[in-house]
């Protein structure tokens, strides 16, 4: 059987994590190709619907990543994101969706290394966790 390769969608904020991803690229920090980025202006913009949709559409995990607390380009968008992720985790965990599949991290603009580590760590974590049910199921 072919080894499972997860598909991961990442909603990252333009000012911190997206910049960190650029930095990781410039520094040629090798990452697994499984994580695909969607650039948002702020994690506070990430509607819980986007996360639900991604998971139902077969993403094995969703990463939301933005500025560290206190560093948010928009003052406090990341705190709002944290509550929304908390809410999603509480809802989804009951349906057998592991909380590790909805991940929130803080990666600052200068932390290219942390970005690459976050990506690689998450991919390994989800590889271990296995595919999400919606990969095979028709759940819309």
């Amino acid at each position, binding site marked *: 059987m072919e080894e499972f390769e997860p598909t991961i969608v990442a909603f990252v904020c333009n000012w911190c994590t997206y910049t960190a991803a650029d930095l990781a690229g410039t520094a040629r920090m090798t990452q697994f190709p499984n994580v695909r980025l969607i650039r948002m202006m702020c994690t506070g913009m990430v509607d819980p619907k986007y996360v639900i949709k991604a998971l139902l559409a077969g993403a094995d995990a969703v990463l939301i990543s933005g500025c560290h607390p*206190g560093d948010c380009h928009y003052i406090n968008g990341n705190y709002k994101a944290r509550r929304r992720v908390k809410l999603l985790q509480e809802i989804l965990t009951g349906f057998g969706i592991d909380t590790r599949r909805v991940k929130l991290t803080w990666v600052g603009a200068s932390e290219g290394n942390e970005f690459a580590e976050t990506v690689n760590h998450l991919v390994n974590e989800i590889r271990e966790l296995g595919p999400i049910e919606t990969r095979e199921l*028709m759940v819309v």
Partner: protein
Amino acid sequence: MATTAKIEVRDKNPVAALQTFLAQVLEDEYVAGVLAPRHLNDNGALMPTLVTDPAMLDRVDPLAPAFPFNAAKTLVKLTNGEMVNKVAAVLKPCEIRAFVELVKLNQGNMDNALLIGVDCLGSFGNTEYLNYVKDADPIASSQEFARAALAGEESPGGTPIAKACMACEHPSAVQADLSIGLVGLDIDDHLVVSAHTARGEGLLSRLGLPDVAEAPSRAKAMAELVKKRTAFRDKMFEETNEATASVEKLARYLSGCVNCYNCRVACPVCYCKECVFVTDVFDHKPWQYLDWAGNKGMLKMPTDTVFYHLTRLAHMSTACVGCGQCSNACPNDIPVMELFRTVAARTQAAFGYEAGKSTDDAPPLSVFQEKEFSEVTGGVD
């Protein structure tokens, strides 16, 4: 400590006693009208009715074991605007709790309402209620129901009350300005009315009813009722968790969903003018459906059903008061209430929030703190 007064019952007719009580309320200088469940005719059809003429209180039935929809939605229409006097609304505890949530969402206005809660012994679903009353006198049926329920009968008249009510741990309306007590009392002798707010105190003192000490039998009976319902609730949580423990199971659970959106129309705290699921955001192009079908070789229609329920959980589970109108409204008998209450219990606990408890508690997603929920980010603040 709440002031409690006595409502005398004559001729073993507690509903008549409540009608008299409401007539007095209606005469109060600050009350412009009374909103209360009233039978439309003699076959039991019941609707919240705005009464301004005391003579029209004759068919008002606060003991009716039914509420065709959550009247918090109606009270929103009656309070949202500038008013001189208040509308006194006779509501079930779940309706009051829903109203509390709606006030926080700038829908209803607490200043314009005088909330009168009645101990809730449970309600039937709409169809079950009409079957229960059949050809009998609806008010007499309500009183019979109340006596039977107070005596501890599980299914008065052979019909079980709605599951939402069996699982409801809030039979008394302590958020109301006034609450009318039935539990633990001989309702053919007297009822009690307690004031929980300054406004309630004011009205109660103006009504001039005799004070009465809270009977110990009432507290005991209330505790027992809450215990019984909590046990039912917890069992329901367990069963529902089991029935939806995986995405596959959840999809099976919701497989009857036809996207009629009745549940959100019936939901008192789904307050949006237009649900996002009926906006053009979910207007997909024909080729998109084909693309999606292409991914797995088929596409279940209608689409966005599980997505809709999960999103609704994200939107309103923290505000869910467990009234059960969603299940009441579902044409395909999906146990919507069970799912929503089960998830709501989780989400409300996560934010230390109890829907409908107080207008002082901010909705969880409307606020945030700098240091909280560090577990979400793996312990990093």
